[in-house]
């Protein structure tokens, strides 16, 4: 299972928001700074922090905390 506090830390750093803003409901709708550029950086940062590769079909889609958690858990289990 993904380390959720590490996940929140990475998201907060890359999106430039406080960790407290990254709750279970966080998404590109609730965090205005989460634009397409930052999203790209977020995917790259998640891959490096958790040592996984996120496939092309998921990379563009995972624009919420919940979806990111699902995909990371899939990858970590693979």
């Amino acid at each position, binding site marked *: 299972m993904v380390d959720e506090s590490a996940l929140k*830390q*990475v998201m907060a*750093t*890359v999106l430039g928001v406080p960790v407290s803003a990254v709750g279970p409901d966080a998404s590109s709708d609730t965090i205005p700074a989460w634009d*397409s*550029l930052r999203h*790209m*950086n977020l*995917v*790259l*940062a998640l891959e*490096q*922090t958790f040592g996984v590769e996120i496939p*092309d079909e998921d*990379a*563009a889609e995972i624009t919420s905390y919940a979806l990111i958690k699902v995909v990371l858990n899939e990858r970590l289990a693979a």
Partner: protein
Amino acid sequence: MNKPVFPKASADTLAILSDPSAPLAQVMAAVEAAEALGGQATSAHIGISAGATVDLLGLYLRRHALTAGVSLKVSKGNFDDPLGDVARFEDWGVDHLILAPFLDALEPAFEARAAMLSDDEIDLRESELRGRWRLVMHCASKFRAVFLCGLHRVGAPVAGGDRLDAIVARLNAALREEAAGFPNVRWIDMAGMVAGVGRRAALDLRFYLRNAAPYAPALLDEWARQVTAVSRAYGTRFHKALVLDCDNTLWGGILGEDLASGIKLSPHDYPGSVFYRAQVEFQALRRQGVLLCLCSKNEAADVDALLDSHPDMVLRQADIVAKQVNWNDKASNLRQIAHDLNIGLDSLVFLDDSAFECEAVCGQLPEVTVFQAPENPIGYLAVIAAIKDLFLAGGAMTDGAEKTEQYRQRAAALAERQAFATQDEYLASLGLTVTLTKNDAARIPRISELSQKSNQFNLTTVRYARGEIEALMADPQAAVWSLEVADKFGAAGLTGVAVVRYADDAAVIEALFMSCRVLGRGVEFAIWPTILTEAAAHGCARIEAAYRPTDKNGQAADFYDRLGLTRSGEANGELDGARSYAADIAAFAPPPSPWIEVLNG
């Protein structure tokens, strides 16, 4: 070996910034933390104008700047709009500029289309490319430095090469040719960089098709590293001398124990071959203008004997400009070397195999850049590659090949000084000549280089880019004087510059800087009759000059007092130790220096 660059930053932050494998999120946090702490000695402002999305390049540029002690502001341009970017960046105060045209964006799907283009169509693309980027570089000639990044393919190469390879090579050759006309432009070899990082690690096609962002973090990080190196850490770095330990650095083994017959230095045997190769590398640096020095705990006579006659030694006495071979501590010896060569400690790079010596020098002389030679031969060659990068990135040091000879002449002159009763008698024996040359375009590169690196005898410390000197020379209301000093020991080359602006009835000395190699002989006083005669002919009745203090130019603080000018600015409230001066040209008489013959170039 890393030096503590920011005394205030935490050890963690430093470790992350200099760890090439640190993950992206950590690098982001560390860059923010280091910038928030501040304490960097200098700052710079870079603009990025690219034909692809390179958002993270800014982060990595800031990272590499911080590890060099520079706080870097990054401005991002619009997508593929170099002319607009250049205009905006100029308004924003950008001083360094990255121009990154992107091959596949020359027109939609250019890489796929290229194979179908006829020779005539390629000719047309080439002339369009030349015209567009010539104009961009022309508009960017005021920036301190411009990094023009070459084209490269994103698609996989075809085994054995294909037509696209030939087209890319041709377009890059055209861009380089255009860049050669602009002295502030440096070339960044992107195709070589992609190959060096490895295509699979360098490119990330997931975000290319969707977001026009082709590069993976590994490539962006290396790109930023190269820009930082080529900019010589945004003009803060100018290393001049490589100071070498001897045992286990120039040869394998300990000379005092293994004796000349037992050291490892044969080109045909391992591990002697590693040290032989190292010496060849050092000698090549010497030929490219690096001053080589020795700093070793050994018997001086033993080391001299090796330099004179050991059959496998590559380095000889003539390659070495200063030697401190004795049993003193290395920090004292390095100070002595800096003193003898009349250069700052921050111009020295020190290489030693001993962790103890390296730590001691880092601790006592943080200005010196220190490298430790590891036992592992592959690691040793990697350290030498890093040293080469430090000295050579951004182009070989100009005017440098003769430098060793000039510094040796200075040492010989020092030795001769002791035989004369008075300083004037000694100076008279030198046969000194100063050749003053006005507005000579051929000397622009050297003038600009000297303005960048002279620190001690530099009255106003204005750093001129080549284009700025060119503009001054073209300006009828200004004059750029360069001076070349020679004596019976040899010519010292272009070693001083005075920049004069004519404003109404005043000749304003905007800048005056000289290499410390030629100070102490009266040259700095001998040049004024020529400069002021010219100013008077221009209608000037007064001379105005100023001293602006920096950390390093204290020795020049009272120069204009000694020259005989009158302080003029005290009443106007000079700030922070700055001084301003004026005098009537007709009444002004600088101290005489009859032992110098002044020639017109």
